[in-house]
């Protein structure tokens, strides 16, 4: 069976089971059909398409990223329902732009798509957040902001994730960041110890009752019918 096909299970499952492809060539694998669909839908915003080791990379215009992701998520012929990773790449060459990378996966179509947007040097490091489309982008975008300093427009709570919130030394994964940080060891330790661990993280436990308003509707329905949660 082809690598891109709707997988049917249960009674409608085909006789042949899907199998992992054994031999993958470097450049000559067929592209993910979503790339062609993207080119037809957003003709000018798609810069180029590459296929590397069977994985399709689509270089897109940073301004169109959010619109594109929304379409990939919602369109019934695409249904990319899973944002598995979001990160950025900075190259050692100072002329090469910083890339923001999204890894999308379509579970019903068994497709994988990598989308890259290049932020040119000299431009502000800003790009649209996809938090409205994928809730999993929340921490991924926070981590990306923490490590690279890329601001995601529209993210509701863009704080540092890995480093502490008052970290002043910069963005550690940028190429101009020294390995040992910018401050001396004693200054780093002094600032780290000045943190109050309880400032942001409460020692009180969050109960289901406290978070009831934020639960998904189906879970609220089940809980309101008296279903026990195992607490």
């Amino acid at each position, binding site marked *: 069976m082809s690598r891109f096909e709707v997988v049917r299970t249960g009674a409608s499952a085909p006789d042949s089971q899907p199998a992992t492809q054994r031999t993958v060539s470097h450049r000559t694998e067929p592209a993910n059909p979503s790339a062609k669909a993207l080119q037809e839908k957003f003709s000018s915003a798609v810069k180029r398409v590459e296929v590397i080791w069977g994985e399709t990379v689509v270089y897109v215009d940073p301004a169109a990223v959010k619109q594109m992701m929304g379409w990939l998520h919602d369109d019934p012929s695409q249904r990319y329902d899973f944002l598995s990773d979001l990160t950025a790449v900075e190259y050692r060459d100072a002329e090469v732009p910083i890339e923001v990378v999204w890894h999308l996966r379509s579970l019903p179509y068994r497709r994988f798509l990598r989308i890259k947007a290049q932020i040119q040097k000299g431009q502000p490091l800003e790009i649209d957040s996809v938090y409205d489309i994928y809730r999993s982008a929340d921490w991924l975008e926070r981590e990306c902001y923490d490590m690279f300093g890329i601001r995601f427009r529209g993210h509701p709570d863009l704080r540092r994730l890995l480093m502490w919130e008052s970290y002043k030394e910069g963005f550690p994964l940028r190429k101009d*960041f020294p390995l040992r940080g910018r401050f001396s060891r*004693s*200054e780093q*330790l002094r600032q*780290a*110890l000045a*943190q109050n661990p309880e400032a942001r993280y409460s020692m009180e436990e969050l109960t289901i009752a406290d978070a009831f308003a934020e639960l998904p509707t189906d879970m609220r329905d089940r809980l309101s019918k008296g279903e026990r949660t195992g607490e």
Partner: protein
Amino acid sequence: MGLTTPAEHRTVSYIPESQEGWAATRLDFLVNWARANSLWPMPFGTACCAIEFMATAASDFDLARFGMERMSFSPRQADVLICAGRVPFKLAPIIRRIWQQMPQPKWCISMGACASTGGMFDNYAVVQGIDTIIPVDVYVPGCPPRPEGLIYGIRMLQEKVKNERAADKGTRDEMEPDPSSQLYIPPSVIDELGEPFGNSVNQTRSAP
């Protein structure tokens, strides 16, 4: 030829008033014996050293032989803080808080290269040795140390506990560096001195 012992080394002198009596030394012996054989560890496992620590506590190496089978996951009932693994700067206030929450008498074992010196993680995110944050009694080398190594460190800590004296008031004092002292070197100078070698060989131990 220097083979004969100097005369001053052949005599033992002591001041009778400064010595504790029979009752005090026997009481010390009893208390230390009890403490050394019932050290309750507070495991602070952050990395692969914690796996070796689990192996030490499991039946093959059986930490219970040394009275340590009771892992105290609350610092308030713990005697020994065993820091197993690297400590990032973000955890620095937390491990210090845990240390402050432990009641006296308390001891600390720094397990492994990362906890002792930062190890290979000489970078922006990792504390270069937990002795820049809290006092450490025993350093266990290794990456990670084998359970035998940790047990050797624990036995050394037990020896240390057995040699403590209740009359020695200074043992449990937490000393703050005194800037008026002649020996005091400010943290900035220590950083300058250690700057080119600020790694696991020559560390900048200049915590405030």
